[in-house]
């Protein structure tokens, strides 16, 4: 809506750390579909839901039964449910609005990643990738687990029944296997330790296609873009590969059946590879050819235009951003703490990264005000333009002045009610209500603060002259002072409020105001700044800018 007035000349990726969030020790993060809420899983088993717009805590999900570190966190499609996997081998499903646990399922192995089925708003299935076992589909209602195949053996004839509750063969016990749902949850894409991508229909366990990656090194992450058109793999050979998805969205199974129609023997590797070549095609490869870093938590931007990956080297917090054409556009450097998780905001050019010591950093564009904003007829030009004056510009009565009338047809119909559907969310099923915001209830004032402060502070304010320290912080006309209320500040603010002179002292000062004296005049600005303390430490807790 406001796209028309935002400057299109600035690039669409983040540049600096804007703020950081602190609450306990957070390990993993996930945005909800619209990016209005950010869920973070903590070391102590609780989940914090941040209101991303106010950067305040909207809800904390906590249950006594769940107290071990969270390994992954995932939202349901419309934001009503959150699934977390924890280090005590359990999967926990939460209801967001009420903050209550719905179910807890204990598996045989610690799940490193758990993903809810993306197709429905109250999914009953999830995909779990355990530490040293094949990925499995877990039914959240019954607790049943179904292992998925991770390799197609050459010697196999006929389908092998999936073994229940037992680790499947063919996989060493040390390599976790990556897997993800495709956009509508019709298929599961598994990246195995032989460097192959398997396309599996999880309903019957059939492997429909195999896409081998050159070099055959272990696949560590596999992730789809939001629109389901691109697939990203992160391999042990330090290369991030982008594949284009050739299957039609929503209709994949039928398309696969058509493709493999000629090949009756599904277990023939060559046939599977042939089908695979029609499912995915290699689009780009990203690597840092100089430092050859391993990548951590690579993912797409919300619109699929950018790919972001974190450097897995210990002791550095580097985020690489490439455009889809393959060019490295930016390296973001944060404080010297290893990066453990990364997420790109679904809509805005914002990246959120989690560092090893549990802080969540928010990277955003460095906003500068547009000069064209200051007057209605200012326009930004890309380069200097020579002004050619009109023929009659310096005439006493230039004719063309009269023609300056409104270009707009005043009789044109104006529509003040229709809202255009946001293209980013075009697949919204409007019958489902989406949970975008958790209600903010104002926290009640402590009664004494109200009564006593009413009188004393209004007197202070009345006699306040404009030479108070607050107005010194004013920037140039039109500039704002960002009193970003990060939680660190909340603590500081709360602490400062305790240190603020008690109500009695305020009253004393109020009385002094009635009889003005030199000492009280010097006290007034101090007490005023304490009373209005909301800018305390400035909006960064020191030294968090990237280079």
């Amino acid at each position, binding site marked *: *809506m*406001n796209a*028309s*007035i*935002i400057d299109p000349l600035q690039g669409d990726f983040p540049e600096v750390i804007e703020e950081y969030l602190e609450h306990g020790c957070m390990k993993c993060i996930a945005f909800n579909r619209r990016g*209005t809420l950010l869920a973070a899983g903590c070391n102590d088993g609780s989940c914090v839901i941040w*209101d991303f*717009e*106010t950067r*305040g805590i909207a809800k904390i999900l906590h249950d006594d039964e769940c107290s071990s570190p969270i390994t992954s966190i995932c939202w349901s499609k419309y934001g009503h449910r959150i699934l977390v996997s924890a280090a005590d081998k359990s999967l926990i499903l939460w209801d967001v609005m009420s903050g209550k646990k719905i179910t807890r399922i204990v598996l045989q192995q610690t799940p490193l990643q758990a993903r809810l089925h993306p197709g429905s708003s109250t999914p009953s299935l999830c995909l779990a990738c355990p530490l040293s076992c094949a990925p499995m589909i877990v039914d959240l209602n019954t607790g049943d687990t179904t292992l998925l195949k991770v390799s197609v053996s050459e010697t196999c004839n006929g389908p092998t029944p999936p073994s229940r509750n037992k680790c499947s063969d063919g996989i060493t016990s040390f390599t976790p296997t990556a897997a993800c749902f495709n956009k509508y949850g019709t298929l599961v894409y598994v990246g195995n330790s032989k460097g192959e991508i398997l396309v599996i229909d999880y309903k019957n366990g059939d492997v429909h296609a195999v896409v081998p990656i050159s070099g055959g090194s272990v696949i560590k992450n596999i992730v789809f873009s939001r629109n389901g058109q691109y697939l990203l793999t992160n391999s042990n050979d330090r290369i991030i590969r982008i594949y284009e998805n050739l299957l039609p969205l929503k209709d994949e199974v039928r398309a696969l059946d058509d493709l493999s129609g000629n090949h009756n023997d599904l277990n023939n590797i060559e046939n599977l590879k042939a089908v695979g070549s029609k499912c995915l095609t290699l689009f780009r490869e990203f690597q840092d050819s100089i430092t050859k870093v391993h990548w951590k938590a690579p993912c797409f931007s919300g619109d699929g235009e950018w790919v972001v990956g974190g450097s897995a080297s210990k002791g550095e917090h580097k985020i690489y951003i490439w455009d889809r054409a393959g060019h490295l556009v930016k390296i973001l450097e944060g404080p010297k703490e290893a990066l453990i998780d990364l997420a790109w905001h679904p809509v805005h050019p914002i990246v959120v990264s989690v560092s090893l010591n549990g802080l969540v950093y928010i990277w955003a564009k460095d*906003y500068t*005000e*547009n000069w064209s*904003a*200051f*007057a*209605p*007829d200012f326009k930004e030009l890309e380069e200097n333009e020579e002004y050619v004056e009109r023929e009659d510009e310096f005439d006493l009565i230039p004719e063309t002045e009269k023609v300056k009338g*409104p*270009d*707009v047809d*005043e*009789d044109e119909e*104006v*529509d*003040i*009610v*229709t*809202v255009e559907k946001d293209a980013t969310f075009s697949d919204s099923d409007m019958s489902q209500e989406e949970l975008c*915001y958790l*209600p*903010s*209830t*104002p*926290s*009640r*004032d402590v009664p004494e603060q*109200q009564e006593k*402060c*009413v009188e004393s*502070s*209004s007197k202070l*304010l009345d006699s*306040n002259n*404009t030479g108070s320290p607050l107005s010194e912080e004013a*920037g140039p*006309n*039109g*500039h*704002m*002072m*960002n*009193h*970003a*209320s990060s939680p660190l500040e*909340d603590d500081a*603010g709360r602490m400062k409020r305790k240190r603020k002179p008690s109500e009695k002292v305020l009253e004393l000062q109020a009385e002094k105001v009635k009889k003005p004296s030199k000492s009280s005049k010097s006290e007034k600005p101090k007490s005023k700044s304490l*009373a*209005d303390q*909301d800018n305390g430490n400035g909006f960064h807790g020191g030294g968090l800018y990237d280079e």
Partner: protein
Amino acid sequence: MATSTTSSGGGGTGTQTFKPYRHLKTLKDHENAVSCVKFSNDGTLLASASLDKTLIIWSSATLTLCHRLVGHSEGISDLAWSSDSHYICSASDDHTLRIWDATGGDCVKILRGHDDVVFCVNFNPQSSYIVSGSFDETIKVWDVKTGKCVHTIKGHTMPVTSVHYNRDGTLIISASHDGSCKIWDTRTGNLLKTLIEDKAPAVSFAKFSPNGKFILAATLNDTLKLWNYGSGKFLKIYSGHVNRVYCITSTFSVTNGRYIVSGSEDRCVYIWDLQAKNMIQKLEGHTDTVISVTCHPTENKIASAGLAGDRTVRVWVQDS
């Protein structure tokens, strides 16, 4: 007692005959000028603010008094409802804003920080922020949960007369006596656009249309204009009323056709057809300037407030 005159100008859309609004009830419970009236977003309640330092919450269906909110030490200039209709925020001459619980009728929070009369206030659609404009020439954004001032925007050189959020809460529009109307980005507090920049006349009121694409702005030269802020050009002008001195609020009526409704210093409520710009009806009955008007979100009901010579809230309905 209350009469309404209908004027049919030329060039109306003519598809529906306009049924005139008629006076339903006069509410006389305030002891001084009523500065603002607003229906709640769910339409069940009506709130009014007055220079008698109190707010009154009425039931919208029965028009009986539910609560009287007492606490401010000076008169109140503006009020705003939260989106879930549970909270009201009031802006007062005592330099503070107060958040009230509408069901219980008690004060939940006091927001301090302005250095002068707080003149206008609004919630954002998510009701997580409150924006306020003051005679101290600043606009402040407050976090509802904690009550802390999150941004202070110093962008005007005279009192700020009106502040409003757009439909998704990403933009704030502010109008001021210094003649300017500016659009700010909520997240950063940066200035995005200046819509009007003349030194005179003062812009007394500005608000976004329901779909957030247009801005209705009133200036103290008897004019209301509908702007497309993307192109920076105004599309419609509405006139015929009197507005030279007071910051009179106007609003969109969308429940039964598209209209612009505004108060006026000649004691009437004016209704214009949105597209044709002609005045359709003039509601008479108040005995002083009509300073504020509000339209019910679902029913064809308008409430209006009068200044000190009148002190009443009048409710008008359209027969179906």
